[in-house]
């Protein structure tokens, strides 16, 4: 899968897609692949605040739980309620239908310090090399 060029990426494998002051956040294809089949997603309530670097959600597979860290700060405007019935969208479409939350950004400039698609792809290449070493 290719990594959308308009997204920004974190070292913890979250992606963020900002349009105007609203950003959509999800986990990357690499992350869903590492996690395995997603069985449950815990999402924050609409109106709650995200603080950069702090956990705001968790994604569960059968044998593991992954904490999801906020790539930027802001207030949750929408949470992807379809994930309650079809958590598997995170596996099948992690960059699209598997989005987690939409957030009104407190400081859009925060995204400038995140990786772009090329940097992220290089980053996960390194990770893959480390794993098979």
């Amino acid at each position, binding site marked *: 899968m290719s990594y959308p060029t308009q997204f920004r990426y974190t070292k913890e494998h979250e992606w963020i897609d900002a349009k105007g002051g609203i950003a959509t956040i999800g986990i990357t294809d690499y992350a869903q692949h590492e996690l395995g*089949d997603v*069985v*449950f997603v815990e999402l924050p309530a609409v109106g709650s605040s995200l603080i950069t670097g702090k956990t705001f959600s968790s994604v569960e597979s*059968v044998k593991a739980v992954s904490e999801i860290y906020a790539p930027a700060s802001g207030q949750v405007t929408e949470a992807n309620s379809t994930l309650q019935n079809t*958590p598997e969208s995170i596996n099948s479409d992690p960059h699209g239908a598997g989005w987690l939350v939409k957030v009104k950004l407190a400081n859009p400039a925060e995204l400038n310090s995140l990786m772009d698609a090329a940097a992220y792809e290089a980053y996960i290449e390194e990770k893959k090399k480390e794993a098979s070493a």
Partner: protein
Amino acid sequence: MNDRIKKVTRHTNQNEGLIFEKSSPGKRAFDLAPMDVPAVNIGKELAESHRRNGVEDFPEVSEIEVIRHFTRLSTWNYAIDLGMYPLGSCTMKYNPRVNEHVARLAGIATEHPYQPQDLSQGCLKILSLLEKCLLEITGMDVITLQPAAGAQGELTGLLLIRAYHQKNGNPRKKVLIPDSAHGTNPATAVIAGYEVENIKSNADGQVDITALREKVNEDVAALMLTNPSTLGIFEQQIPEIAEILHAKGALLYMDGANMNALAGITRPGDLGVDVMHLNLHKTFSTPHGGGGPGAGPVAMKKILEPFLPVPVLVEKSDGKLALDFHRKESIGKVKAFGGNFGVLVRALAYILAYGPGVRQATEDAVTNANYIRKQLEGIFDLPYTRPSMHEVVFSDALQKKRGVNTMDIAKRLIDYGFHPYTTAFPLIVPGALMIEPTESESKEECDFFVEAMKSIAQEAEQTPEIVKTAPHTTRIRRLDEVAAARKPVLRWKPRRKESGAAG
């Protein structure tokens, strides 16, 4: 069926549905004696508002159906009585049958915890003797038999530690836990109100002393250590570890899950441990029963005695035993009615059967583990090469090259007639195979196991698919755990006829 597999072959095995699916109104499996007192009007006695008209859909079957139902179900289980469980840190040893017999004796099984203590001297003597034996084995000063399992023992231990620190003016904030620890350790620390700080293991799989020295300060309440570690390796620097902790007023907690490597050989109390728990369902042979009951006694040094859970077993001036409930500084109760007495009886029966000979059991356990290690070294990757005690940890690094991982190997082991070893734990060894044979395995059983593992390694090399899609011979193949977690179905429901209304 693979020609190489000698230990097991196919056999016709009964299918069986749920007991509710066999139910039919009017069938009975149990009769009561006729009532010898006047009958009463239940509706009047309970008031209609409280009255229940039978338990809906409760099963109605005959005695033979109950016997067949559970007998058939039992044949689908693997068990120690059938063969080895190489499960690391579980100590799946023989559950002696005399233990079952004595636990069921009239006068043992029938006693009520609130009956007069004068009428319970037999029970109290059993508890007293077990306490003495466990203290002798652990080298500690006092013990509580109250916790119902290892995890509850851990909690009790931490609550004792907290009470101790509190009395000294500072309950402290953190508990240090090695990254090789069992999951109950951090979970328990949090419930006890502490923060968890992980401490890394060094290249030898032991606690990193330098890291420990840096981390121990007056905010640290204790270090929770498993010894031997979950790698099966003895923590050689345990006396130094104890010193570092004690110098800052912190305590050393030992998770006694691996006591099967130490009983009769060395004593944690002599090594500097302040408090520890035991798993009677591991080291002391009480049956796992499919997942409990267990018992997790906590033994400690005298400094923690004031905080013991109530009641405390004491000897009165007339020589009789009694339960003392008046302990001002006690941490309270972690469970109602004392410990799991039935489990404690079984553990004492085990100790009495062995006597000081319990050392021989430890020696055989360590011999078996090392024998298996020697035969499988080179065939499986051995990440930590220090001497193994009662268990050995390999990794799937060699087999991974052919796309076969520890889970696959474990599942293929089932086709060879064994229960899998512990997979993917400890976390510090990626792709771990954790193997503990216990002393209950004969040379023959160990050889069968080694043969099976060697054969599977060969299969991983030559025909990996057969390993990756195992097991092949069980009545149920790999189950869809994803569906079970996404849409949990946790009970049987009767099929109802559709009513006229929608929904």
